[in-house]
């Protein structure tokens, strides 16, 4: 068997970015993907943020299978019977210049992996890497069942449910409190209906995030993203909270779709797919060792996900980390040194990039976001306050401060509110 400069395990955003970077520099690269085709095993909310896509694929605005460009964000607190939203619309430049855009994984991954092949890498789908070839303690390639593929370096980008990071000795298995489970339906609707209901035109798009009753008050949230001719509707919940509270995500998404503020948005839509996936959400606290002799790990397999409560970013961090891993291997190849010491360059590159900087800045966010008041008391309180303000009882009106005080009663203490605000300032 030919020995490759690098073997990439998994053709998601991290793996494709790494493979593309190396293949373009002339290295021999093999990418192995367990799905029948690239993207087959993957799902996400669907919003890609930031300039990293343009840095690696300058032509992406013309080429990538973008569903819609994001120009509207709606964040909502919901109780069983209310929904209080902040609705932000932004019209700077033309729609195509928006920094965020919505894509679906089956198309996105296939587009990216085609770029990888065009750059000269070999892509093999339908093959699951099951183990490593070891040379002493150093990784020297991968195994697919009994078949061996030798390589100077393995880049491990096998995602949140990585079985291989542990086998490589980089970390223990993740734990339920550090994981969120996402479930989602693709609901088909005609393009004009989506544009009318969501107040967008052309290629404009909306991302909606919901906090509160959609997860029965458990840490997590609901989301609706607009695709061209469908909606992505889903719920994300801390896995350990599901287990401890005997709640199923499959029930939560049904309740979410029935909520009076959601039902009219999806009316007459046809569900065409149901998907589920894990997300590692504890950031730096759960990060593994990022390299050892002959191996680097990037993306969800290394917990490179940024969740601040208002946004969830993983694909852009995965791509940036993949580029850093690829560049590290290009440097190692030039010196023909693939030892842990040579590969430590990867960590330095990550620290200089937004990946580690953002994860450091928001290192307190995961713990902060476990505060149950965010998902119970605050939605209840803010919605009660709005009800109070808008309610007309025929009696003399009270001033707003009194309505606010009244709505807090039995729900939230002033000291708690001050404490949580201070914590929020530090965390997010």
């Amino acid at each position, binding site marked *: 068997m030919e020995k490759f400069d690098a073997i990439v395990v998994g053709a998601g955003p991290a793996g494709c970015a790494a493979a593309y970077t190396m293949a373009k520099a002339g290295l021999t690269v093999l990418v192995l993907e367990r799905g029948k085709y690239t993207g087959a*095993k993957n799902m996400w909310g669907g919003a890609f943020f930031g300039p990293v896509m343009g840095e690696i694929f300058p032509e992406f605005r013309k080429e990538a299978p973008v569903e819609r460009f994001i120009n509207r964000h709606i964040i909502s607190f919901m109780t069983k019977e209310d929904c209080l939203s902040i609705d932000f619309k932004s019209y700077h430049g033309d729609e195509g210049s928006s920094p965020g855009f919505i894509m679906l994984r089956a198309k996105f991954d296939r587009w990216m992996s085609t770029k990888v092949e065009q750059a000269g890498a070999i892509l093999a789908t339908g093959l699951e890497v099951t183990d490593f070839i070891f040379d002493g303690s150093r990784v020297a390639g991968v195994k697919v069942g009994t078949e061996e593929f030798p390589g100077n370096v393995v880049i491990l980008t096998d995602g949140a449910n990585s079985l291989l990071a542990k086998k490589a000795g980089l970390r223990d298995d993740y734990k339920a409190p550090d994981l969120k*489970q996402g479930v989602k339906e693709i609901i088909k609707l005609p393009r004009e209906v989506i544009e009318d209901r969501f107040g967008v035109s052309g290629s404009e798009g909306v991302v909606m995030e919901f906090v509160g009753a959609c997860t029965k008050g458990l840490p997590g949230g609901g989301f609706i993203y607009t695709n061209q001719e469908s909606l992505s509707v889903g719920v994300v919940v801390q896995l350990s909270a599901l*287990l401890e509270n005997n709640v199923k995500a499959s029930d939560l998404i049904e309740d979410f779709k029935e909520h009076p503020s959601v039902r009219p948005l999806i009316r007459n839509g046809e*569900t065409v*797919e149901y998907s589920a996936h894990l997300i590692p959400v504890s950031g730096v606290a759960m990060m593994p060792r990022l390299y050892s002799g002959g191996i680097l790990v990037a993306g969800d397999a290394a917990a490179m996900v940024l969740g601040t409560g208002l946004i969830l970013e993983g694909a852009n961090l995965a791509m940036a980390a993949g580029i850093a891993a690829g560049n590290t291997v290009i440097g190692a190849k030039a010196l023909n040194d693939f030892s842990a010491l040579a590969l430590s360059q990867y960590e330095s590159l990550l620290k200089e990039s937004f990946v580690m900087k953002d994860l450091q800045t928001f290192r307190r966010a995961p713990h902060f976001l476990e505060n149950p008041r965010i998902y119970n008391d605050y939605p209840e309180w803010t919605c009660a306050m709005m009800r109070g303000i808008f309610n007309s009882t025929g009696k003399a009106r009270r001033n707003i401060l009194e309505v606010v005080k009244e709505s807090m009663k039995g729900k939230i203490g002033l000291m708690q509110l001050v404490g949580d605000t201070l914590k929020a300032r530090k965390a997010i």
Partner: protein
Amino acid sequence: MKIEDKLSLNKFDIDREVHIRVDEEKCKECRLKPCLYACPAECYVERGGRVVFSYEGCLECGSCRFSCKKGAIDWVNPRGGFGISYQFG
């Protein structure tokens, strides 16, 4: 919408080889049965006090792997190319 109806919309290439095995002996002593709440595809169901598992609708998320404290779940991916193939994702 019932879970069976939802799963029937998905594209699966179901392997004859079972990729997740549950040791039902261990389940007998399990009171809380957290696997029931882990699985978004409801592959784990309770029937007459027993947990019954079927692998066909598995979405390969891995959640059940992190739910069982008794080591009753032997979990691997389906063989390459088999299992779920999302059309949208």
